[in-house]
């Protein structure tokens, strides 16, 4: 039994009210709860107040002026089945379908995925497990077990939809008591496992806007089992237009996804290999994961060339 800590609960009906509540210390948003509640059972978070997104009206997909707008509260299952997503953004549909399991895809939201905590073998564990190791820097401890001589926390960015959304040119819309702003998904994240989001606690993600006229993007996820497991290496690759460059975003190897460009698929795979320095944040050997970055980028590019 892993009981939840106790907390108060509010289900506001406007985003501004939610943002106001989130401005008070110790409060957190809960959407699908598929990551937050597990983390709370592991005592990674013990919020005083949970603010629910369920009455904020953030669920639904619309299309206008060549842009697909997905409410942050839309489930991954709904995104992956939307006809416009299937027709114009198959890489986004594919990314949603690789998250966890079909049951979790029916609970988890796209907003929760973009805001997902960074992950590590020494962090995503029950409180007793972490206590017996003396905890770690990211939560309650003073050392990093992955890089004891390092300069911080290297917990890995693990949100499956982010590499594809990044290369599709998606923007995230945030609302807070300070106003509304749009941030490209490509500039939402920092390379710091403890402070990986460039946002304030009272920023409510309301929607993700994805241009439909984007170029072809491929998505690949390396994992132990074909269901349930998080990625060991996650890649998205974008084909060039008009003699431009190939691009790749690699995730699950560092706190922020990593972007690289190159003239050919082979150079792209090599550039990604050189840019990524995975550490032992996952069970399989980091040296093997580094080699697999090259393999997965090459496979994603090959699939785009043959498509």
């Amino acid at each position: 039994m892993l009981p939840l800590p106790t907390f108060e609960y509010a289900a506001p009906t406007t985003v501004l009210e939610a943002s106001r509540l989130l401005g008070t210390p110790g409060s957190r948003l809960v959407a699908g709860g598929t990551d937050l509640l597990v983390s709370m059972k592991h005592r990674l978070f013990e919020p005083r107040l949970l603010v629910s997104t369920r009455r904020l009206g953030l669920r639904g997909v619309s299309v206008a002026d060549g842009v697909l707008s997905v409410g942050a509260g839309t489930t991954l299952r709904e995104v992956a089945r939307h006809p416009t997503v299937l027709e114009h953004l198959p890489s986004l549909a594919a990314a949603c379908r690789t998250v966890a399991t079909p049951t979790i895809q029916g609970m988890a939201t796209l907003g929760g995925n973009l805001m997902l905590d960074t992950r590590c073998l020494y962090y995503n564990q029950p409180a007793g497990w972490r206590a017996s190791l003396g905890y770690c820097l990211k939560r309650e401890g003073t050392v990093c077990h992955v890089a004891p001589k390092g300069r911080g926390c290297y917990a890995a960015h693990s949100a499956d939809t982010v590499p594809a959304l990044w290369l599709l040119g998606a923007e995230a819309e945030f609302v807070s008591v300070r106003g509304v702003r749009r941030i490209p998904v490509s500039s939402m994240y920092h390379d710091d496992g403890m402070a990986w989001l460039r946002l304030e606690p009272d920023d409510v993600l309301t929607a993700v806007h994805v241009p439909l006229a984007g170029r072809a993007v491929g998505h690949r996820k390396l994992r132990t089992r074909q269901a349930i497991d998080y990625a060991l290496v996650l890649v998205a690759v974008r084909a060039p237009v008009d003699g431009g460059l190939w691009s790749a975003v690699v995730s699950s190897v560092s706190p922020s996804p990593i972007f690289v460009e190159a003239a050919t698929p082979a150079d792209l795979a090599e550039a990604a290999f050189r840019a990524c320095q995975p550490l032992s944040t996952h069970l399989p050997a980091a040296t093997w994961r580094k080699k697999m970055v090259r393999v997965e980028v090459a496979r994603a590019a090959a699939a785009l060339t043959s498509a």
Partner: protein
Amino acid sequence: MSDSTNEAAGERVVALTVNGDSVRRLCPSSRTLLDFLRVDLGLNGSKHGCDVGDCGACTVLVDGIPRLSCITLAVEVEGLAVRTIEGAGPDEARIVAAFDEHVASQCGYCTPGIVLCLSHLYSEDPAADDEAIRQALGSNICRCTGYTKILAAARAASQREASQPAQGGSDE
């Protein structure tokens, strides 16, 4: 739509339907739907497995869609319709019969979750093929059967005309 915020700190009234019956209870905000069903309502069909979203033993249907009740707050299903294995109808009975015939259940701990996932799958795709069945059951872990008999039972319960032989899929 009433927002029940007037209760003592941390406790709220939750009103929902469970297997067609209206239920109204005062419960702590931190109560999971699984504990709400098992402890508050005495419905023990939904099983307590991993407690963290990995195994699918606690699966119930909320407004017809599978949900893991161990990582769902009872307060978050306020106003919705929950169906557990205790509310099994003819669709589930057909699946359970196939499980009996193919001996697809040993300890039975995973069975309620799997039956509800399959019942949801067939409600959308009555003739689901092996690939669709495998995909859907990616949500559920069984420690006993080795899955072969579960797949055989699921195939028998699907309304597909010509049953295809099971083949080594990519997920093995």
